[in-house]
């Protein structure tokens, strides 16, 4: 499956993932920890252990500090 992953504020990558891959797998492919980012599908956060079903996702990094 072909997925466009936009790491917000950074870059957009096109990834090919196997069926059954999770959103956590997309994060791993972008070298982003699931503890420092949320995955959004159509602007809605999704659980990282969910199976990828969207062709386009956004990765929103947590901003440290105040």
């Amino acid at each position, binding site marked *: 499956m072909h997925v466009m992953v936009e790491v917000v504020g950074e870059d957009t990558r096109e990834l090919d993932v196997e069926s059954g891959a999770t959103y956590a797998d997309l994060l791993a492919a972008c070298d982003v920890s699931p*503890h420092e980012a949320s995955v959004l599908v159509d602007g809605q956060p999704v659980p990282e252990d969910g199976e990828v079903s969207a062709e386009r996702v956004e990765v929103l990094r*947590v*901003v440290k500090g105040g």
Partner: protein
Amino acid sequence: MDCDRCGEAAVMHAAYSGAHLCEKHFRHSLEKRVRRRIREDGIVPETATPEDPVTWLIGLSGGKDSVVLTQILAETFAEDPRIELLALSIHEGIEGYRDESLDAAESLTDDLGVRHETIAYAEEFGVRMDEVVEDDPEDMAACAYCGVFRRDLLSTYAEEFTADLLLTGHNLDDEAETALMNFLEGDVAQMAKHFDASLGPLDERTLTDRHVPRAKPLRDVPEKEVALYARLRDLPAHITECPHASESFRGEIQSLLYKLEEAHPGTRHSIMAGYEQLARQAARNVDRDRGYASCDTCGRPTTGDRCRRCQLLDALGA
């Protein structure tokens, strides 16, 4: 993925507990953890009455953590006449960055009807962080100067406003990083200080007569969940990283914790559970031989001859 509690679409998965939660139940869960922490730390004194309320000063930077803290405290205690909330923002003299987050702080406190005050390093100390990082007389990271100055002003203004408690938005990741740093640096004295300053239940802390006690009600909540909460509630949080952020050791520890947490979900929680017990023991031992003196220059409590703030201001020629 559905919510464990109601079957709606889940917005998050907490690997450390196994929970999948929808927006509504995630919000409830986070708020419950914050309120439980407030109870466990015993920060609402039994002596507080509507006639004789306590004042809580919130350190409000306008970033996600302090915005979420302010929102939840305001909602929890809006109807409680025993608690008066006051938010304090500090402008460190970081062009652009801090101006925007202060707008967020202003907008939030307006919405919530919470009194809000802003102070600046420039007026208080005659320095601005943009210049401090250029000058850098001590050859340190920006955060090392900034942290000393910020803590000093929070304490000073907590006293100025006769606050009974100073609250900050530190989250679980922040605290687990600090715990691990203290451990790896072998700094048992710092663990004891941490316990007495903010970690221990209020009635177990000693030497607090020297400083206004602190509390961190978000310290059981992972950073990512704080960010998610701010986003789901569309709170006016400022989301840009400080241009001077450069704590390299903390950054290393953060990466290490992310890896550990992935391999062993719950690591941050267990680090804190154990650290708190160690810090408690350390605080009990250290109390016997620790003494505070007054800074030769400004008179504030310090463990040496001069406080760190005065040393740094001297080095900066301020």
